[in-house]
């Protein structure tokens, strides 16, 4: 009797483990609460849509097997670095994650990367543009976003073409992402001959910008470039508008890309955002859905159009899927080799990772576009692509008022 029970238990265990072998476990955290909530949720929806579509199509096919994608974790990291550290360790050690996606934002990703690298797990990063993490000699980290140094180059090039005599103010969040974006932009602005008349970082939880705005007014810049994430960016735009600051162009990071931005009404109009992806951008797709199909499926599921965070999330899944298929295995070393060899265009644009040891995993294939919130003929706020000129869907409105 005892032997029979043991055999039954053994068979059950075998069945269970063989069942698990048909799953690919992917771990990541979501900022369900805290300052990164808005952007992080959009990224999560990208992951989720990809998973649902892949599983509906029969899963990831590799080495003659089909694997269902299963998310382990999806815990709330509370936009907090400490939680990320605990949860990524937990997902690897207890939840048996095979692969990881990054949390949202550069600072959370930098922390997660330490954990995933320590345990030798592949992590595809989305919503994380800061490039420093990739210079630390990591082997299994792969970046989907164009790096921070690329964010504002286009804005300054566009401004150079439109108003070469403009003066520039930088007002930005004192956080790793925005600092990593703004510092090279300041240097670049001076290189191309702009006069930077004001520059100041503000604390990430700032809600009252009156003091900074007064300083901006005193410095009399033509354009303002800066921001950080959603809460501060939306507040800054609203207060700039209420204080009637005379600016010909406002460019803010991240926040204006969210569909929620239009809720700011008139304060939203004219604001430019550097974007990793816009629904209007069209690429010759080699793998996965077209941009239009992605946007359609996303809008049908969530009742809002996708932002670039959503597209980045979906693209993460897509690139991992392709690497596993190319590798014909879920083995970390083989998938990493396939990722190293990746050079492909999806709806999200081109993806190629640096393979040199001093910048391994850095995104070198993807390029950015600039979008501007404009009023269409019926007065509704819509986001238009204004740069690069080759891919524009509307002309830049300059000056905004």
């Amino acid at each position, binding site marked *: 009797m005892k032997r029979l029970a043991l055999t039954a238990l053994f068979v059950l265990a075998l069945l269970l483990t063989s069942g698990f072998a048909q799953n690919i476990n992917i771990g990541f955290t979501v900022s369900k*609460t805290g300052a990164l909530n808005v952007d992080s949720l959009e990224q999560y929806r990208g992951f989720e849509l990809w998973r649902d579509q892949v599983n509906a199509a029969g899963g990831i096919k590799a080495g003659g097997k089909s694997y269902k994608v299963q998310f382990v974790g999806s815990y709330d990291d509370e936009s907090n670095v400490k939680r990320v550290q605990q949860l990524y360790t937990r997902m690897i050690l207890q939840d048996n994650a095979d692969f990881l996606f990054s949390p949202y934002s550069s600072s959370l990703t930098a922390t997660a990367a330490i954990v995933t690298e320590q345990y030798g797990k592949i992590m595809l990063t989305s919503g994380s543009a800061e490039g420093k993490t990739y210079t630390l000699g990591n082997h299994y980290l792969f970046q989907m976003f164009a790096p921070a140094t690329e964010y504002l180059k286009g804005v300054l090039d566009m401004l150079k073409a439109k108003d070469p005599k403009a003066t520039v103010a930088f007002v930005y969040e004192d956080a790793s992402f925005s600092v990593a974006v703004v510092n090279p932009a300041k240097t670049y602005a001076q290189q191309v001959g702009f006069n930077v008349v004001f520059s100041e970082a503000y604390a990430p939880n700032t809600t009252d910008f009156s*003091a900074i705005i007064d300083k901006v007014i005193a410095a009399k810049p033509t354009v303002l470039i800066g921001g950080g994430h959603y809460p501060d960016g939306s507040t800054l735009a*609203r207060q700039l508008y209420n204080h009637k600051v005379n600016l010909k162009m406002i460019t803010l990071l991240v926040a204006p890309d969210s569909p929620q931005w239009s809720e700011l009404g008139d304060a939203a109009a004219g604001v430019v955002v550097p974007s990793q992806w816009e629904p209007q951008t069209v690429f010759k797709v080699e793998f996965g859905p077209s941009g239009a199909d992605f946007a359609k499926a996303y809008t049908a599921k969530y009742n809002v159009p996708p932002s670039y965070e959503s597209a980045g999330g979906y693209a993460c899944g897509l690139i991992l899927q392709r690497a596993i298929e190319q590798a014909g295995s879920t083995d970390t070393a083989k998938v990493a080799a396939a990722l190293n060899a990746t050079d492909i265009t999806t709806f999200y644009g081109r993806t190629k990772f640096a393979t040199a040891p001093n910048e391994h995993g850095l995104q070198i294939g993807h390029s950015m576009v600039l979008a501007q919130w404009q009023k269409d003929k019926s007065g509704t706020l819509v986001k238009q692509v204004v740069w690069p000129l080759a891919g524009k869907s509307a002309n830049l409105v300059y000056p905004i008022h």
Partner: protein
Amino acid sequence: MIDGLLIGSVYGLAAMGLSLIWGVMDVINLTHGAVIALGMFAMYLLFTALHLNAYLLLLPIIAMGLIFGTLVYWTSVHWVIDRPQLSSLLSTFAVNMIIIGAGTAIWSTSPYNVNFSLPGFTVGLYTFTGNHIAAASAAVIIALALELYLHRTRPGKAIRAVADNREAAELMGISSTTVLALAFAIGIALAAASGALVSTLFPFTILSGGVYQLKSFVVTVLAGLGKPLGALLAGILLGLLEGAVTPFIAVSWIPLIEFGLFVIVLVAFPKGIFARSAA
């Protein structure tokens, strides 16, 4: 400077609530920040439902604050008021965590906006928004109304009597329990009102009350305990200070200056800078 003056009066109003409860009951009310956040959400919900002038909505919010304050008093303050101060500190902290937890579950920590704006006026390059002016005026009006209430009405005088000497007040036939409940309710209503005013100026989340709670502590210490009008003046002073120093230093340094001031005042003027004039 003018911006500082305007926002300072809202700081002052927020601190009045804390100061009143602290002074009368010897309770450091740690629900203060959470109630400020609740005031913000009350304004948001009422405004989106009714689309009335946001500043008219202050009246129902104050009424709700009074009811909520009474409720909190009877559920979690009354029973610990005669115990060591740590008890009431922990008890109000627990209520604070309950409010924030429930708020996070309902509204998450995403930012909300009260989409209401009054026309402002422009002097040269600088524009002062109508909302700032209206919020500051409302804060001053509420503060003066409270001052009149405390000095001219029977219940108001009873509150002051209990604050001065609870035993003596009881000997004079004042029911100190009723008075304490009333003072707590008023303190909570003031916090809610200040939250409602802030919500017309800046976007907010359920966690936004924390900043104003900290500022309220600084203001209360500046003014001295239990001096509501002093708290208003100290609030304005704090706002002015912020306005005056920011042109010269990076904004990130402001908390350092404020809390530096907090320590200096605690050490040098333990009864507040208005101690002598109010005595």
